[in-house]
C-alpha cells in the first residue's frame, strides 16, 4: 500500500512501515521552544531533574515573542532561558534574530526530519518536507531531554492546487480560501499535503506561508514534497548536501482530496474573530483600518516585503492609518535593507520593528486601542489576540495590506496591478 508524506517520514524514524492511526515512539531531529513556552518547559525538566538536551546542536531556544522584553517578568523569563542554554549547550536565538519558524527553516531543518516545537506554528517546517508539529511545553521538554516523542500517525488530506494565480492573488489568499472552505477544525488531527502544479511552481516563501497556516484548520502538519525548489533553498542556506527527495507514493491512501483552481481565486480576508471567517475582498472593501501590520512567520519574508514595497513606492500612506513592518529574521532584514525596501517603507511612513513576532501575540509593539481595527498578514485574528479584546483583526496578504495602508480602508490589490501595466510601458519607452 502506498504511503503519504507523513507515513513515509514517521515510518523512517520508527524504522518500520507505519499507517495512519498507529501510535509510535520516534526519535526527534530538531526541537524548539520560544520565550512564551520555554520557561515552563525548563521548569518541568527541573522538577524531574532532567535538565539536559539529548541533541543540543538541534535544540533551539528562541527569544522572539516578547523581544526585546517589554516587562521585568519577561526579562526574567529570558534569563531563565539563557541560563538553560548555557547549562545544556542548546542553541540560543537571541533578541533580534527573528521568529523561530523562519530561523528553523533558514538554519536548522532538513527534508525528512521530525521537528517538534512548543509553538503551534511549528507546522511551518512542513514546507521543507520535514514532519513538523506543534506541542505543549511538557511534550517538547521531554522530547528535547530524551530525544524522543510519541506520535499518532495522522490521516492525510491531499490538497491539489492547479492553475496560475491571477495578478494580486498570492499563496496567503490560497490558504485563507482553504481554511474558509474546510473550517477552523476541518482538518483536526490530520496532515495536509499540498501538491499540484501551483505548488510545484511556488517559491519556498509561498510554501512556508501555506504550511504555516495548516494549524489554523486544526491540522497537525502541512507537508510539501521536496523538489528542486527545496534543493535551491537549502543550497542558498549552505545546506545543499542535506537535500533529500521525498515524494508521496502515487497510490498513497488519503482520507480526503481537495482540488483548488488557483486561477479562480480572489484576494481573501479573514474577518474577526475566527480565521475561517473568510470573505472575498469585494465584501471587505471600504472597512476603515487604523493599523496595518506586515510581518510574522506567515508573511514576514523578503518576498512579502518586496510585494508591499513595490505597491507603496511613490505613494502616500493614509494619514489616519499606521503601518508596522517586522522582518521575520535578521537575514530578511539585512536583505530588505540591501534591496532598498526598508528605506522606501520608512519614507512611506512605516514603523520598522526588530525581527521577531512583533505585535502578533499581543504583548508589545502595536497593541490595539478600544474599537480599533488592524489588517495584518499574521495567521490569527482571535478576540484579544493583539492584546485587546476590544480590537478587531482582519487577515490578508501583504499586497492587500499595502494597498490598505495607502487607502486607509481595506482595498483590492488587483486594482494596483491593472493600473500598473501602462506605467511600465511608458517607463520602457522613456529609456529608449
Amino acid at each position, binding site marked *: 500500500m502506498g504511503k503519504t508524506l507523513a507515513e513515509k517520514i514517521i515510518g523512517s524514524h520508527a524504522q518500520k512501515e507505519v499507517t495512519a492511526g498507529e*501510535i509510535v*515512539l520516534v526519535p526527534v531531529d530538531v526541537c524548539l521552544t520560544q520565550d*512564551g*513556552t520555554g*520557561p*515552563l518547559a525548563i*521548569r*518541568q525538566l527541573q*522538577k*524531574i531533574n*532532567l535538565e539536559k538536551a539529548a541533541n543540543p546542536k538541534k535544540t533551539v531556544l528562541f527569544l522572539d*515573542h*516578547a523581544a526585546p522584553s517589554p*516587562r*521585568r*517578568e*519577561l526579562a*526574567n*523569563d529570558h534569563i*531563565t532561558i539563557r541560563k538553560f542554554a548555557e547549562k545544556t549547550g542548546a542553541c540560543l536565538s537571541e533578541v533580534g534574530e527573528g521568529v523561530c519558524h523562519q530561523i528553523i527553516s533558514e538554519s536548522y531543518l532538513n527534508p525528512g526530519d521530525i521537528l517538534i*516545537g*512548543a*509553538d*503551534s506554528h*511549528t507546522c511551518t517546517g512542513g514546507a521543507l518536507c520535514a514532519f513538523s508539529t*506543534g*506541542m*505543549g*511545553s*511538557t*511534550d517538547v521538554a*521531554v522530547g528535547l531531554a*530524551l530525544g*524522543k516523542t*510519541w506520535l*499518532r500517525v495522522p490521516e492525510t488530506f491531499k490538497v491539489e492546487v492547479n492553475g496560475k494565480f491571477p495578478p494580486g492573488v498570492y499563496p496567503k489568499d490560497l490558504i485563507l480560501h482553504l481554511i474558509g472552505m474546510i473550517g*477552523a*477544525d476541518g482538518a*483536526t*488531527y490530520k496532515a495536509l499535503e499540498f501538491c499540484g502544479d501551483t505548488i510545484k511552481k511556488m517559491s519556498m516563501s509561498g510554501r512556508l506561508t501555506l504550511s504555516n497556516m495548516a*494549524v489554523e484548520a*486544526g491540522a*497537525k502538519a502541512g507537508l510539501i514534497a521536496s523538489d528542486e525548489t527545496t534543493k535551491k533553498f537549502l543550497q542558498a542556506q549552505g545546506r545543499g548536501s542535506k537535500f533529500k527527495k521525498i515524494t508521496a507514493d502515487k497510490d498513497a491512501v488519503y482520507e480526503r482530496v481537495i482540488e483548488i483552481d488557483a486561477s479562480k481565486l480572489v484576494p481573501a480576508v479573514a474577518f474577526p474573530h*475566527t480565521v475561517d471567517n473568510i470573505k472575498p475582498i469585494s465584501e471587505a472593501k471600504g472597512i476603515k483600518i487604523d493599523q496595518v501590520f506586515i510581518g510574522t512567520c506567515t508573511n514576514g519574508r523578503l518576498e512579502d516585503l518586496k510585494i508591499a514595497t513595490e505597491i507603496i513606492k511613490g505613494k502616500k500612506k493614509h494619514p489616519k492609518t499606521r503601518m508596522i513592518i517586522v522582518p521575520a529574521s535578521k537575514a530578511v532584514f539585512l536583505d530588505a535593507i540591501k534591496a532598498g525596501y526598508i528605506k522606501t517603507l520608512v519614507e512611506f511612513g512605516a514603523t520598522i520593528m526588530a525581527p521577531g513576532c512583533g505585535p502578533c*501575540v*499581543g*504583548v508589545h509593539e502595536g*497593541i490595539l486601542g478600544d474599537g480599533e481595527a488592524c489588517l495584518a498578514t499574521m495567521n*490569527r485574528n*482571535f*478576540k*484579544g*489576540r*493583539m*492584546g*485587546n*479584546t476590544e480590537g478587531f483583526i482582519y487577515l490578508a496578504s501583504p499586497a492587500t495590506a499595502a494597498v490598505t495602508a495607502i487607502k486607509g480602508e481595506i482595498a483590492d490589490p488587483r486594482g494596483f496591478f491593472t493600473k500598473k501595466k501602462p506605467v511600465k510601458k511608458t517607463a520602457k519607452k522613456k529609456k529608449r
Partner: protein
Amino acid sequence: MSMIGKAWKFGDDISTDLIAPGRLFHLRSNLPELAKHVLEDADPQFAGKMQTGDFVVGGNNFGCGSSREHAPTIIKLSGVSAVLAKSFARIFYRNSINVGLPALICDTDKIEQGDELEVDLGQGTVVNKTKNLTLSFAPLPPAMIKILNDGGLLAHIEKHGGFKLD
C-alpha cells in the same frame, strides 16, 4: 472515579487566547496569578464564581490556537475537574492529558449552563443530573490513558525513566 460539579457552558472555538490571553504573557511564570484570570476573556464571571470540582463545557474546537500549555494548566489549577467538549483542538487535547486534566469528547448540546453533572472516568459516562440524562464520552487512546493514569506526562517519565506506552 466519579466527579460531581456544575457545568460552565462556553461556545465554539474557545481559543487559548481566551483561556490565557497574550496580554497576560508576563504571568506565565506565575501560574497561580494567571489562574485568577482563567477564561476571563470568554466569561469574566467564571474565575470568581466557579467552585472547585466544576466542569468547563465547550462546543466544537475547544482550545484552538496557540500551543500554550498554560491554558489547560490554569484550568486545572483553578479547580476544574474536567473539560467536556464536542471536539478539541489537537495540541490542547494532548496538553490537557499531559498536565492531568481530563478532556472528554461528548455531545455537549445536551448540557446547559448550571446543570449538575457527574462524570465517571472509568465508566466513560457523564450523567446530567439536572436533565436526568446519561451521555457517554469517546474513550482516550490507550497511550493517553497510560499518561493520564500516571498523573500526567512528567510523572509518567519520572515513574518509568522514559516513555512506557505499550
